[in-house]
């Protein structure tokens, strides 16, 4: 058993750390307050090769493995959970879907610009009536000559307002059940696809979330991803990768909660000594540090399984479930450790607590993860 990252992974983590100190920390408060997508930051991430770490060089990526991408997301989310998430869903779901299921032409046309960070990907599955229950979706794709015609309304699309390359899931044959959904690559500007309502959110505020509306949106056959009817299977594979990314995002949030709690509790003096000397506070920090270690092991292990070419659905779900709940639990504690100063705007822990909540919801709620895990172990 080898618990060590490679020297390259350690250096990449260090470089990401330096990147966040220089380019992300200074704007993290502002982009949260104004809900702004920091275009200029994503240009810099693109230049550094952070937008396509596990994508092979011939398709515009950095040519590394999935674990290295996960290490980068962990470190990035430590500074800004929204930015960490945007990179995670872009690489973990959008890029991986084309890499795993796309044709050679699709990889050249869609994957390469995404992996170079010139285009941003979006994953369009959830509908107003179909969240956890994906099968309740109503969006349809009807074959018409050489095209498919999409109709329906999707919701909660991350990168909806800012994306370039959308991965849209729709029924091609509803009667076929789990084998009736297909996935389509829809470039921004395709007639019939419109960005609907933008959502204002509790946290994750610089990530843009919106409805996506499809009205007789015509998609050429060549933009069908994978086989007709394979949509749901591909979405699940996308989730394996994406959930590992959310686990990394949660781990980064948890790390930041610990960093802030250690720093503040050593500085804050009450009753003549730093509050870190109070056992009540010290134990909160002990639990936080312990769960952080477990979170990181679960997350990196899931990514390692992926890199070994092994099935990792269960590991990805376990990692996401544990890390997201730990992030929520401990960011609440981190605010507690900061007392009133943790409740006011500008305190990092205040943002961390709001950002943590979403990790228990998207890419499958904690309940959905428990369904996957129990289904797996009770099989």
């Amino acid at each position, binding site marked *: 058993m080898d618990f060590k990252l490679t*020297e*390259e992974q*350690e*250096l*990449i983590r*260090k*470089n990401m750390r*330096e*990147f966040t100190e*220089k380019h992300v920390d200074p704007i993290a408060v502002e982009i949260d307050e104004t809900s702004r997508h920091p275009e200029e930051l994503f240009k810099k991430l693109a*230049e*550094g*090769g*952070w937008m396509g*770490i596990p994508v092979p*060089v011939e398709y515009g990526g*950095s*040519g*590394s493995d999935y674990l*290295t991408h996960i290490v*980068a997301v962990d470190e990035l989310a430590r500074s800004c959970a929204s930015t960490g998430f945007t990179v995670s869903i872009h690489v973990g779901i959008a890029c991986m879907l084309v890499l795993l299921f796309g044709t050679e032409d699709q990889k050249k046309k869609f994957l390469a610009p995404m992996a170079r960070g010139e285009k941003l990907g979006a994953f369009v599955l959830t509908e107003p009536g179909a969240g956890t229950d994906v099968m309740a979706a109503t969006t349809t794709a009807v074959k018409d000559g050489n095209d498919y015609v999409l109709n329906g309304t999707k919701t909660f699309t991350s990168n909806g307002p800012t994306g370039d390359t959308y991965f849209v899931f729709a029924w091609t044959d509803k009667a076929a059940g789990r084998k009736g959904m297909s996935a389509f690559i829809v470039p921004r500007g395709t007639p019939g696809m419109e960005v609907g309502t933008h959502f204002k959110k509790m946290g994750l505020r610089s990530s843009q979330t919106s409805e996506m509306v499809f009205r007789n949106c015509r998609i050429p056959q060549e933009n069908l991803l994978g086989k007709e009817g394979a949509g749901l299977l591909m979405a699940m594979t996308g989730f394996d990768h994406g959930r590992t990314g959310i686990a990394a995002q949660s781990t980064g949030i948890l790390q930041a909660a610990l960093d802030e709690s250690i720093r503040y509790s050593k500085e804050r*003096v009450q009753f*003549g000594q*730093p509050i870190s000397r109070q056992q009540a506070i010290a134990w909160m920090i002990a639990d936080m540090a312990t769960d952080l270690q477990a979170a990181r092991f679960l997350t990196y292990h899931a990514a390692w399984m992926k890199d070994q070419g092994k099935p990792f659905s269960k590991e990805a779900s376990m990692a996401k479930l544990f890390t997201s709940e730990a992030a929520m639990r401990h960011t609440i504690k981190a605010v507690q450790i900061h007392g009133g100063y943790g409740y006011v705007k500008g305190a990092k822990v205040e943002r961390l607590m709001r950002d943590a909540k979403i990790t228990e919801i998207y890419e499958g709620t904690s309940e959905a993860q428990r369904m996957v895990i129990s289904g797996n172990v009770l099989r």
Partner: protein
Amino acid sequence: MPQMIACFKWVVDEAYIRVGASGDLDMNAVDYKISDYDKNALEEAARIREQAGGSVAAVTVGVPEATKGVKDALSRGAEKAFFIQDPSFRDLEPSQTARILAAVIQSRIPYDLILCGEGSSDLYARQVGPRLAELLGIPCLSFVQKLTVEGDRVVAERRTDEGQEVCTAPMPVLVTVLPDINTPRIPSVRDTLMASKKEVVPVRKEDLPDISSPFLETVSMKGTSLKRSGTRFTEDPGDVKAFVDTLLQKGVLK
């Protein structure tokens, strides 16, 4: 097109050093990094090569475990590294490091321009650069905050106690740089991955002439610690007076 050498030291990252209650330094969980100003030296070499062409070799003297440092240096633009290594090279003093570097450079690495950081993040003795120049018998320009290559000379802006001074020297020359000279790049993911594919020339102690024994002995090393008294002063005039009185009382002001 200058052939350049950038020297660097792989040092303890001070952010990881813990200071115990009695001032003892706990190095158990430390990480290492390229010494801060040496990053500027590597960056300056890479910058000159990108503008004027030429080549960059990174050179370090250290313990065999410093392989990560060599990769780090190679991810910052050097195309080749010389890794002078021995388990006993952990606590070399500047005169020894300079002698080792001189021996290796003289016998193995052609050069026009050698770049060093002004001083290392750990000891900051500021001796390796000037001593190395002396041993190689070449001019040394220290405290350099701006550097250009013009033909077969370098023009350097030096920061001295009196102000700034511009001077020029013929190559081969050794330059020690200040942090203001540039902003070291953050290597891209690809730069880091490609670093492992670059050539590393190992040089071992057996390949070197005898290195003299050290002149210095470290008797002890203690950290300073900051104890807070927990007293607060506001902008209230009475408090300002109390603040000044406290500083006088503690001997901070005289």
